[in-house]
């Protein structure tokens, strides 16, 4: 399995199991056009390789994701939404690293940094290992795995 496939699989299973949302690998026009950044998050890792998993959510998705995770009818307050995004990024990161480095590799993950500046506006940067984009409701989630030199 290549890294992008591993990233897609980790993100899909995490969003399904934790958020009860079922992502699409092919974006609809609405999903592709969603341009309002709802949240951004970074989880740094250190081990046999160092880097970060970065995630951004566009459209009107984050409130539904957090509400589903919490079992609420409506979206929770913004701080809780950010915490939910951080946990999703943390779980995706923890699941994709063994696919890249093997299950014997030991990594230390940082606490998720949420509310960071938009992080994915350089998708072709030299440290980008893989990028995954998934449609979600009327928005989308973009995830990048970066490897620091």
């Amino acid at each position, binding site marked *: 399995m290549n890294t992008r496939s591993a990233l897609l699989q980790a993100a899909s*299973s*995490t969003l*399904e*199991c*934790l958020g009860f949302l079922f992502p699409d690998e092919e974006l609809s026009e609405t999903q592709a056009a969603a341009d309002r950044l709802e949240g951004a998050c970074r989880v740094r890792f250190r081990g046999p390789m160092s880097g970060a998993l970065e995630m951004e959510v566009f459209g009107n998705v984050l409130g539904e994701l*957090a509400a589903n*995770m*919490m*079992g609420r009818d409506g979206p929770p307050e913004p701080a*809780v939404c950010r*915490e*939910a995004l*951080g*946990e999703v990024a*943390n*779980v995706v*990161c*923890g*699941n994709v*690293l*063994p696919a890249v480095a093997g*299950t*014997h*590799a*030991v*990594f*230390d*993950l940082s*606490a998720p940094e949420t509310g960071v500046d938009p992080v994915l506006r350089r998708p072709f940067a030299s440290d980008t290992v893989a990028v995954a984009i998934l449609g979600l409701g009327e928005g989308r989630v973009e995830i990048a795995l970066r490897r620091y030199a």
Partner: protein
Amino acid sequence: MAFNVLVVDDNSVMRTVIIRTLRMSGLPLGEIHHAADGSEALAVLRQHWVDLALVDINMPVMNGEELIDRVRDNPEMRDLAIIVVSTESSETRIAKVLRQGARFVHKPFTPEHIRETVLEITGVGDGHEHEIGAASGGEFDS
């Protein structure tokens, strides 16, 4: 039998997810306590009877591995059933958790997986629990 449960995770959303998943699993739940790190968890364990603890590994103040060590060193707590719920994928670290007498559930998880692991570690038969998806009566107590 209803399980008194302690959920230990520094992320409040994940604590809620775990409690929600426990309820969805159909396991009979009694008191539900929660703590944001190992130190808080020990304080809860000193004050309440807990049958089962679901514990994250990476937490500030006191992480999950140290919490399990402290529990196993305490004669009044050492037999506590502990399930580590973590994103950890390193076989080395998972093996250490298992040597500490805990079970391991990888995030993300399903109600079925949680249920199977709880029944396995507690040794309780699968005869008195509700069907998957049925509501159970647990409440937030701390």
